[in-house]
């Protein structure tokens, strides 16, 4: 039996049940834990299924593709779902320890589940309009999570986030409409197959570019990323972490999906644009971070620059580069989530995210320091952590493709990333904690629930180390994913099986 629908249905059900149990925070917490655990379990099963069968396809409602909506999970999808499961569980654990009751009482958990549902839906669907729907589920869940709490910064950030993302949705929707007008179908495999028969690709390029813009905004690529630094540092840390880990990656995933399986008709045109985008994204993101002195803002800008690496993998469009991109996504989701969660702990203990006001954690909490150093150095691409191999593969692909400029940029950005991470390390961990201003009393650190937070962070950090020390199996997954993406006929056949 095809398990493709479960990653959607599990969080949807958890979300619906959480709404049903609105009045009982305890029940919602239990559902949060159970729901994310089941999601992780399901995603592992799905990964197994994909691993053994190649593609897992489910024609929803029994309507053969392209008649209805077909869920189609290839290795990339399975990887992304698995990461969703891991991140989801980590965030749920962290949230159990960190979410204030006033947020719990006002829908934190249902929003979290449904965000995961939207993310997972985006990863498993094989239908372009259905992708739009899951994007919107995800988007509006993120809107609500972003504004939960109602502080000024949140509102200001949210307005930008909402507006710019809705602009993206409008372009996405328009592109879907035009694409349907051209090929009369919404199933990605069907689209891919039909586009393969089109000789006059001019208009196809136009649509491709529209998708590129729409997903570029979601992925926060240059110069479309403004919404991200404006908002990601404003909500609860758990929410930030969830966004940082998963949301932009949905945009990246979509770029990978569309610009391998669907739009591979004119790589010279489309992927050259992507190459420039990648370089500029890496650079502007990392420079943005260099100008920041707030924990989460630094991390937020780094999301952007890291997105550049992933797009670089796609843009180079060699098997190795795609592998690198996929590997990078895997690594980044885990690492970035971890870093945000660490910022949550420091925030919890000091009540601030400002580097200048933080300090002293290396002495007080050596364990936390290690838990920061691992993802931080990993993000900066230091060996032998996951980020090193991710970067190595992309760089190697760049060198093999003789794409000197972007490779040089990628290397430089790696250095600047390290600079940022070290900046945080020096300020938050090494430096002695500055004395509070006169009369300003530091809030008493709240330590209840800290254990949950540590569990989440430790688990994720372990993943980073695991990928670093034992990268081969992860690489193998990425390799399968890349093979499937580079030779989309397999995907197309699996989805359209049984069609004349």
């Amino acid at each position: 039996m095809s398990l493709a629908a479960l990653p959607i249905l599990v969080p949807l059900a958890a979300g619906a049940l959480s709404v049903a149990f609105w009045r009982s925070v305890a029940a919602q917490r239990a559902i949060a834990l159970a729901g994310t655990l089941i999601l992780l379990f399901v995603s592992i099963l799905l990964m197994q299924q994909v691993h053994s069968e190649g593609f897992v396809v489910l024609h929803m409602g029994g309507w053969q593709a392209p008649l209805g909506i077909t869920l189609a999970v290839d290795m990339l999808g399975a990887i992304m779902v698995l990461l969703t499961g891991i991140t989801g569980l980590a965030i749920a654990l962290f949230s159990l320890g960190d979410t204030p009751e006033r947020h719990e009482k006002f829908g934190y958990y249902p929003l979290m589940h449904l965000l995961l549902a939207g993310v997972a839906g985006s990863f498993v669907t094989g239908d372009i309009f259905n992708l739009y729907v899951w994007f919107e589920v995800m988007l509006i869940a993120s809107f609500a999570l972003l504004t939960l709490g109602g502080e000024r910064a949140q509102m200001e950030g949210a307005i930008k986030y909402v507006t710019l993302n809705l602009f993206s949705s409008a372009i996405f929707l328009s592109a879907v409409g035009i694409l349907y007008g051209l090929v009369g179908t919404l199933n990605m495999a069907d689209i891919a197959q039909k586009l393969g028969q089109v000789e006059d690709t001019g208009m196809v390029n136009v649509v491709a570019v529209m998708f590129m813009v729409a997903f570029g905004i979601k992925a926060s690529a240059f110069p479309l990323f403004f919404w991200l630094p404006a908002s990601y540092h404003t909500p609860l840390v758990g929410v930030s972490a969830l966004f940082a880990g998963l949301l932009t990656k949905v945009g990246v995933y979509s770029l990978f999906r569309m610009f391998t399986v669907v739009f591979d008709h004119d790589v010279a045109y489309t992927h050259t644009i992507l190459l420039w985008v990648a370089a500029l994204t890496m650079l502007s993101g990392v420079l943005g971070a260099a100008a920041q002195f707030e924990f989460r803002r630094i991390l937020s800008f780094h999301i952007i620059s890291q997105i550049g690496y992933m797009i670089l993998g796609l843009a180079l469009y060699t098997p190795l580069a795609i592998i690198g991109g996929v590997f990078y996504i895997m690594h980044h989701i885990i690492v970035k989530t971890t870093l945000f969660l660490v910022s949550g702990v420091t925030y919890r203990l000091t009540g601030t995210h400002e580097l200048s006001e933080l300090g002293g954690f290396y002495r007080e909490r050596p364990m936390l320091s290690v838990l920061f150093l691992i993802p931080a150095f990993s993000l900066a691409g230091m060996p032998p952590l996951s980020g090193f191999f991710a970067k190595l593969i992309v760089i190697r692909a760049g060198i093999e493709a003789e794409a000197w400029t972007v490779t040089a940029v990628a290397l430089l950005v790696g250095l600047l990333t390290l600079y940022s991470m070290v900046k945080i390390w020096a300020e938050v961990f090494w430096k002695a904690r500055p004395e509070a201003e006169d009369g300003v009393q530091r809030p008493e650190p709240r330590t209840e629930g800290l254990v949950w937070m540590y569990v989440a962070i430790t688990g994720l950090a372990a993943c980073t180390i695991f990928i670093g020390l034992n990268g081969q199996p992860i690489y193998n997954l990425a390799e399968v994913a890349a093979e499937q993406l580079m030779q989309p006929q397999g995907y197309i056949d699996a989805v359209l099986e049984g069609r004349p």
Partner: protein
Amino acid sequence: MNESNTLILRTAALFLMPLQLLFSVFLLLRGHDEPGGGFIAGLVASGAVVLFLFSYGVREARSLLRVDPRDLLAAGLLFGLASVFPALLVGDPLMTAQWWYLPMPGGGTLKLSTPLIFDIGVYLTVVGAILTMVFALSQAESDA
């Protein structure tokens, strides 16, 4: 002051609201064959309650509804999800429509189907969602 203190509107609302509710059920049930369906019906039903709310205020509207609209919302979502699974019982792919024909007293048959359950879920969700929002807004307005 949350409700409108106009007698005319209040009285008219008492006439119009059942009419609108009834019509919404009508739109829901025959939506599969004629224009209508869960959304449209749900929107009409929400309109009916909104009219009542405008006339009598949010507290009266709440007590009229008896259940919290949030619960309607949850029920709607669960209905929607519930329609996904019956297909498994007969080994079809998820969401495959199942049709049951129940003989009714009086000679007719009642057509029941998962799409109908689904549409009811949609209906309840729409009503629940809109009323949740409208009630919250009106409440805030009257509290302010």
